[in-house]
C-alpha cells in the first residue's frame, strides 16, 4: 500500500511529539532540579519528591482531589445514568430539548458559572441562604468561607456542570440496547427493576467503563471550579492538585517543584487510567 496513511496521521504525531512527549520528558528532567526560571537549573536529585511528600499542602490538595473524584464517580455517574433512563423513556415528548437543556452548562464558560454560583452562595446576600431563611428560618450557612461547606459548593458546581454532559453518553448507550432483550425479560416475568439489573446494567458495561475513565482523568485534574469559586480557599480547603502545581510554578516560580508535582500526578492518573482501559478492553484498533 502507499505512504498515504502515514502522511494522514503524521500531523497528529508531530504535534504530539513536540507539545506532549517532549514536555513530559522536560518535566521529568526539571523535577530533579531547582529552578526559578533564571540562570541554569541546579540538580538536586530526588529532593523535590521527598519535600513533596512532606508538604502538608500537597497532601491537602491530594485529599481534596480524591474527594472530588470519588464523589463525582459515586454521585454524578449514577445520576447521569438515571437521567439518561428518564430521557430515554419510550414515547417521551421533547426528548431532544431535554438533552440540550441538561447539556447547556458545559457550553458556558466556567468563569460565568463560578461567578453566578459565587453570588448564589454568598453568605449575606446569596439566594440560597435567603431561601433557607424563608423556608426553615435559618440561613447563615458560611457556604464559601467554611472549609467543609466550600467543598460542598464545589461539588454542587461540578454536579450541575457535568451531569448533563455525561447523560448524553449514557443515553447513546441505552439507545443501543436491542429492544428484544427487554421484551424477552418481560416475557420471563421480570419487572422494571429486575430488567434494570439484568439487562440494562450488563449491556451498559462497555460505555460505562469509557465514561468512568474519562471522568477519572478529568476530575483528577480539576482546576477551574475550585479556583474560580474561592481561589482554592478558605485557606487551602478546596485547593486541587492542578492548582497546587499552578501555584508552585506560576505564583512561586518553583518550577522544579511544580514539575515534580506534575510527574506524581501523571503517574497516578496515567497508570490507573491505562490499567482500566486495558483491563476493560476499550479503544482497541480493529
Amino acid at each position, binding site marked *: 500500500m502507499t505512504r498515504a496513511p502515514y502522511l494522514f496521521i503524521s500531523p497528529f504525531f508531530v504535534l504530539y511529539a513536540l507539545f506532549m512527549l517532549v514536555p513530559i520528558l522536560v518535566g521529568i528532567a526539571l523535577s530533579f532540579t531547582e529552578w526559578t526560571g533564571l540562570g541554569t537549573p541546579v540538580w538536586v536529585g530526588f529532593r523535590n519528591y521527598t519535600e513533596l511528600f512532606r508538604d502538608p499542602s500537597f497532601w491537602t490538595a491530594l485529599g481534596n482531589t480524591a474527594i472530588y473524584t470519588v464523589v463525582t464517580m459515586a454521585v454524578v455517574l449514577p445520576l447521569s445514568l438515571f437521567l439518561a433512563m428518564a430521557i430515554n423513556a419510550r414515547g417521551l415528548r421533547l426528548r431532544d430539548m431535554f438533552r440540550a437543556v441538561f447539556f447547556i452548562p458545559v457550553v458556558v464558560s466556567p468563569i460565568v458559572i463560578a461567578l453566578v454560583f459565587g453570588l448564589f452562595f454568598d453568605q449575606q446576600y446569596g439566594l440560597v441562604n435567603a431561601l433557607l431563611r424563608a423556608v426553615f428560618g435559618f440561613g447563615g450557612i458560611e457556604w464559601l468561607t467554611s472549609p467543609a461547606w466550600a467543598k460542598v459548593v464545589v461539588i454542587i458546581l461540578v454536579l450541575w456542570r457535568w451531569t448533563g454532559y455525561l447523560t448524553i453518553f449514557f443515553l447513546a448507550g441505552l439507545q443501543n440496547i436491542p429492544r428484544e432483550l427487554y421484551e424477552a425479560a418481560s416475557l420471563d416475568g421480570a419487572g422494571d427493576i429486575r430488567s434494570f439489573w439484568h439487562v440494562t446494567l450488563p449491556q451498559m458495561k462497555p460505555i460505562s467503563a469509557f465514561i468512568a475513565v474519562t471522568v477519572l482523568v478529568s476530575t483528577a485534574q480539576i*482546576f477551574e471550579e475550585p479556583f474560580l469559586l474561592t481561589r482554592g480557599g478558605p485557606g487551602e480547603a478546596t485547593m486541587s492538585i492542578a492548582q497546587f502545581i499552578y501555584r508552585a510554578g506560576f505564583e512561586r516560580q518553583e518550577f522544579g517543584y511544580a514539575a515534580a508535582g506534575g510527574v506524581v500526578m501523571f503517574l497516578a492518573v496515567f497508570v490507573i487510567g491505562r490499567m482500566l*482501559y486495558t483491563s476493560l478492553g476499550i479503544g482497541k484498533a480493529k
Partner: protein
Amino acid sequence: MRRPGASRDTSRPLIFIALALVGLFWLFPLVWALFSSFKQRSDLFGYPPTLIPADPTVLNYVSLFERYPFVSWFLVSTVIAVVSTVITVFVCSLAGFGFAKYEFRGKRALFDIMFSSMAIPFAVIVVPLFIMLAKTGLAQPWFALIVPWVAPAFGIFMMRQFSEQAIPDEILNAARIDGAGEFTIFRSIVAPLLRPGLGALAVWSFLNAYNNFLWPLIVVGDPDMYTLPLGLQAIFGAEGRQYDIVLAGSILAAIPSVIVFIALRKQLIDGLAAGAVKS
C-alpha cells in the same frame, strides 16, 4: 397477560413533568444571571433577593463598554477559537480517516499511543510546555493558544468512528481504479461524507477554545491580548468586586457559545455520543 411496557406507558407523563421541573431548576442559574445583568447594583444585593429586576437598567452593559476593551477581548477569543477549529477539523478528520480506512504496519501501536494520550493530564505538561515556549520565544498568544492544541486525540478518535460508519470501501476502491490520488479521495469523496461528524467536531473544538481558561491565564500577560474569560476575571478581580458589570459581560460572552450550541446541538450531541459508543 401483562402487556410489555405497560407500566412505562402510564408513568410517561410523570417522567415528563419530573424532567421539566428538574430542567427548569437546571436552567435557573443562567436565567437568573440574564435577569440580574439588568439589575441596579443595590437591587442585586437586596434582601429578599428577587429574580425580576425592580427597576431594569442597561447601565451595566454601558459601563462595561465604556470602561473595558470588551470588543477587543471578544475579537481575540473569537479569532483564536475559529482558527483553532478550522485546523483541528482538518488534522483530526485526516488522521481519523487514516486510522479507519487503511491497513499499515504499526497501526495498532500508533493507535494505542494516540488513544492513551487522552489520559495524560494537562497539569503535567503545563509547566514544562510553558518554559519551552517561553525559552524559544513562542509564548505569544497567537502561537501558544492555537498550535499546541489542534490535534486532540478525542477528535481523532471521534473521526475514526465516523469514518468507519460513513465511508463504504467500495467508493474508495472505485475512485482508486479511476486513478485518483489518496489526498484527492479524502478531499473530494471522504470529506463530504463525513460532514455531520465534521460539524460535531467543529462545535466541540470551538467551545473548548472559546471557553478555555487555565492555559490563557498562564500564557497571556499582556492585557491587550486578553481573551474573554481573562477579561471577565480581570473585571471581577478589580477593586470592589463589580458583580453588576461582570454579569453583563458574562451574558455577552455566553451568547456566541450558546448560539453555536443551539444551532448545531443535534449534530454535537449525536456526534459526541456516536464517537464514544461505537467503539
